[in-house]
């Protein structure tokens, strides 16, 4: 997994790319989320467009990020969820947890509207 962090107003966009799975990726993503929370940037959109693939552990990484942010009065929303990721979210019912968007403006806009 690789990532880039961008800002759009008070929303932070994390562009993930490569493979999202257990082990090392989990630590990297957890540290990133903590760092952003410390900076007061708690409105996160995770852009999955560059994710080649993901497994259940990768979804676990996202859900851990989500719970951490929610505890800190922030949120984590998903952008560009592929069919594969969607079906993992669907069978695990995590689709009911994550807000998902296909359009970046809609994703960031959902925070300012909210």
């Amino acid at each position, binding site marked *: 997994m690789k990532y880039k962090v961008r800002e759009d107003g008070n929303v932070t966009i994390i562009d993930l790319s490569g*493979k999202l*799975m*257990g*082990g090392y990726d*989990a630590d990297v993503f957890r540290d990133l989320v903590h760092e952003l929370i410390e900076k007061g940037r708690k409105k996160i959109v995770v852009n999955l467009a560059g994710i*080649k*693939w993901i*497994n*259940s*552990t990768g*979804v*676990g*990484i996202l*859900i*851990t990020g*989500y*719970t951490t942010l929610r505890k800190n009065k922030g949120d984590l929303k998903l952008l560009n969820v592929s*069919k*594969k990721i969607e*079906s*993992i979210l669907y*069978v*695990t*019912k*995590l689709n*009911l*947890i994550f807000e998902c968007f296909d359009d970046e403006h809609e994703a960031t806009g959902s925070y300012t509207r909210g």
Partner: protein
Amino acid sequence: MAEETFVLEFPSSYKWLNMIDLMCTEITAGMDFGRNALNEISISVIEACTNALEHGNKCCPDRSVMVVFRRLEDRIVIEVTDCGEGFDFADYLQHIPDPSDIHKKRGRGIFIMKAMMDTLKYEKVEKGGMKVILKKMTDRGGEEGDE
């Protein structure tokens, strides 16, 4: 058409999972599966291989994971074998934790395989490791004659 069998052995590292994915895609191409079903097979194979290399082989690079694909007219059968200690699958399969529990980091792999494939079976192999057997019927194959 008779059964077509493919065997792959690879070292226990995450970095080879993409290769398994490509292989799975090539093998299932042209079978009577819809796009969703193909995704489900590929996701399940990756989950099975992840468990084998991680829980079974403890990511030890000189232990290999063996994957057998049996491509039949009406179904695909995939067996993933590791050389680990095994686990109490009978007990686990009876008490699979709720995958929608957001406080759990892990523990969704077996649930996903069970939900996405028609059959999920575990066997202990002689040498000690686990073999997980996944099966999915093609759209033509229907649901009949399982187990």
